[in-house]
């Protein structure tokens, strides 16, 4: 059980700050909100029969849209900061909405500094001159860590609602 003193307001403020960095295409700013041992995954959803005993997850154990650590995320940021990263040149205009913030019992991590949080998200993405946004929704299962006075993201699993991506690239961070 987590013993760290972190309020719901602190958590919500962290998510708002994270969204602000990413919606302003400030990817290095976002990188600064992660711990150096961050584990970040977006597993592929596989639509299966609803089992009587939920033995099989709805998500692949090995197949991922993203499977990152600090080094690989930093590498992605390096590329995004190039003027030749065409998928984000010009940048996608995004708007992240994060809601349904719920604290949960820890699964691993350090009980004195870590807190596990589930949240829902909707990211609206605008590209080119299309008036219609592309929308991604899902749930995140995060481990937030208190580092000094600040929260940092130590672990994230993103559970997308879709099994097929309706857009030509996953060039943004979820």
């Amino acid at each position, binding site marked *: 059980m987590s013993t760290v003193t972190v309020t719901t307001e602190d958590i919500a403020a962290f998510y708002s700050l994270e969204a602000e960095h990413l919606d302003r295409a400030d990817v290095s700013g976002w990188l600064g909100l992660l711990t150096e041992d961050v584990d970040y995954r977006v597993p592929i959803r596989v639509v299966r029969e609803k089992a009587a005993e939920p033995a099989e997850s709805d998500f692949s154990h090995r197949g991922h849209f993203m499977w990152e650590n600090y080094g690989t995320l930093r590498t992605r940021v390096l590329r995004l900061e190039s003027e030749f990263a065409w998928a984000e040149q010009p940048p996608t205009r995004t708007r992240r909405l994060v809601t349904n913030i719920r604290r949960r019992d820890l699964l691993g991590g350090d009980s004195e500094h870590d807190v596990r949080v589930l949240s829902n998200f909707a990211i609206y993405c605008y590209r080119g001159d299309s008036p219609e946004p592309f929308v991604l929704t899902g749930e995140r299962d995060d481990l937030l860590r208190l580092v000094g006075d600040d929260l940092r993201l130590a672990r994230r699993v993103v559970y997308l609602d879709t099994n097929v991506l309706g857009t*030509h690239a996953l060039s943004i961070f979820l």
Partner: protein
Amino acid sequence: MTTHDERPRERVDDLLAHMGEDLERGMVPAEVFNDESVYRRELRQIFGRCWVYIGHVSEIPNNGDYHVRRIGEDPFIFVRDEEGEIRVMLNSCRHRGSTVCRTDAGNTSHFRCPYHAWTYKNDGTLVGVPARPSGYRQLDLEQWSMISAAQVDTFRGLVFATLDPDAPPLEDYLGKFRWYLDMQFALTEGGMEVIGEPHRWYIDADWKSGGENFTGDSSHTQMTHRSLLETGIASEAGAGKTGKAFGLHINECDGHAISMRVMGEGVTSCFNYPPELQELFAAGDLSEAQLDLVRRGIVHDGTVFPNLSFIHFSAKDDVEKDETAFLSIRTWQPRGPGRMEVWNWTLAPREASPEFKEKAYRAGMASFSPSGTFEQDDAIVWTGVARTGGTLTAELQDLRFNYQMGMPGMGSAEPIEDWPGPGRRTPARAGCAPSTASGSRT
């Protein structure tokens, strides 16, 4: 999507009739990349007749394992039945056509329709009709099995199917190109294994753009993927810079094509596979000539007509670390004029350690997948092709795209005579040999 009413049939007939001549001049009509009538004909004449890739044997290791896949737009169940036989069956109940399988994947001994509960064994045999004693007394169950694709066959673990009962055998269809496929899929005795589930995503671009790019577009790397060269995420050798490595395009190989970048004679790169796996390659059943191209391999990328492409390569997910070898295969599936759904699988040698397979997967995912640092920019540049192809202007101006690079008079490359494999081959010095035009002709 087209921006105007469907083009007159006669115009499309005319375009297609003159396409051979156009290709001789290195021209391709823009409209073929986004036209309702061309699309409908492709579904029928290409996806209705060719051998189309369904999945890999390693995706259905156990009896009853199934995945739902497509031939063209048609949904098929790819399943291993209780006898271990591979089946490819239309995802439809024989009764009234309701969809039998509404999931992506799973394992089952039987398929049961939710409408009237007609039940089939996983080999498609109809075994249960609830109203039979009172309403279907003369129904011969054997006549009402699930519909199979006309032919199903496997080559080096790759399962293909065709809707055409008169299609030549798979072996003949792949023809001499099997020599190149061996190098990708039969490196070791155990062959390759798919890791995880496929990535699936939509691109507003024509299905032909993907396959064409993977057969031999050496000159796009420097610009499309420039962000990777600048940051050191991709190496110069892989990207097309000359030096110790050289490139070549191979086409006119029974309808399929491949592009390779290899090190000079006697230099081993072997896609950066670790030594313990390289040793296994030598013990497999590739010929010396094939092994030589594997040992010197930096990248092999190609397309099996119509829409199965592969790239055997090595990439970094972390700019500070080394590259890891992987094999990515993908199908560019037709989803309407100017629109495709891509399915991507990452493979590694079956005998590789779990640690290597994980590294290979992450390297493939980091470079060639929807979030892939290479793939993201490819998708962007192809969308414009479909957009232009769909314009009224393209029709009014008889717009042709330029495929003249490397053609006689344009190119300095001479065909390579001394070559141990099949097909016509030309060197590519970060340039397109006349492969694309001939590839398109095929």
